[in-house]
């Protein structure tokens, strides 16, 4: 159990969550966050809300960036693995086209 005191307000909790997202938590703070998430369902709820907003903002920011510049697509990994999959009998022309 960590020696750090439990955050008392929502803003203090959000500050702790924010540090995790910026990879600025030290080991004691990481332990505190783990303890809080394990023991308190309302803190888990707040954490999920925080993550949902963070991810949503990242998504919106990404859309703004992609409007101005082309970006890499993580589906490219499939292009690398598709050749190992038995697709010869596929009725989908897009799949047949990818078979090498």
């Amino acid at each position, binding site marked *: 159990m960590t020696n750090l005191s439990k955050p008392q307000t929502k803003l203090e909790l959000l*500050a702790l969550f924010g540090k995790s997202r910026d990879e600025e938590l030290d080991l004691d703070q990481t332990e505190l966050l783990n303890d809080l998430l394990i023991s308190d369902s309302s803190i888990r*709820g707040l954490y999920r809300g925080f993550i949902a907003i963070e991810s949503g903002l990242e998504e919106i920011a990404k859309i703004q960036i992609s409007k101005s510049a082309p970006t890499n697509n993580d589906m490219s990994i*499939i292009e690398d693995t598709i050749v190992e999959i038995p697709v010869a009998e596929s009725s989908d022309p897009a799949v047949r086209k990818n078979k090498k």
Partner: protein
Amino acid sequence: MSNVPRYTQKWFEQAYLASRPKLRAFIRSVIFSAEDSEDVMQEVVSIAWEKIEKLQSKEQFQPWLFGIAKNRVMKYCTKMAKRKSRSLSPEALEALWSEHAITVGASQESLLDALRTCLSKLSPEHQKILLERHQPNVTNRMIAREKGYSESKTSRLMNTLYAELMKCIHKIQGNS
């Protein structure tokens, strides 16, 4: 017995893209490092495609994908815990997972719509700061430097804006 695959690449891509925002949110909720989080995303999509024939039905795609993600994230957390690195513990992941699994069916689009609405209610300056902050690899520290604020002021501002957004989204979702 037919050898024709039940799932085409095109179908897989569409199904994955529809699940991607929620999948990313789940993985990012457990893995603090943005870079590691993206690596795990890549692993998950690669494994899912390799094992796609094991998917029982198209309707099961999202829970199946999240099952793969949970396994990969659990491996990551276990590895990091052994190294005493900064990451959520496997126990914290289990606690979060049990509740995440319940909300997997909720629409990510409706959350994004609510978030856009709530964002538009903030001042243009605050909208700009929030969206700059959420570009890849941007931290509070960078925003503080750019705006000429102290780090603690920037952190307080961000947390206040998050709290406002949460309250607003909760209100919208509670009314829908």
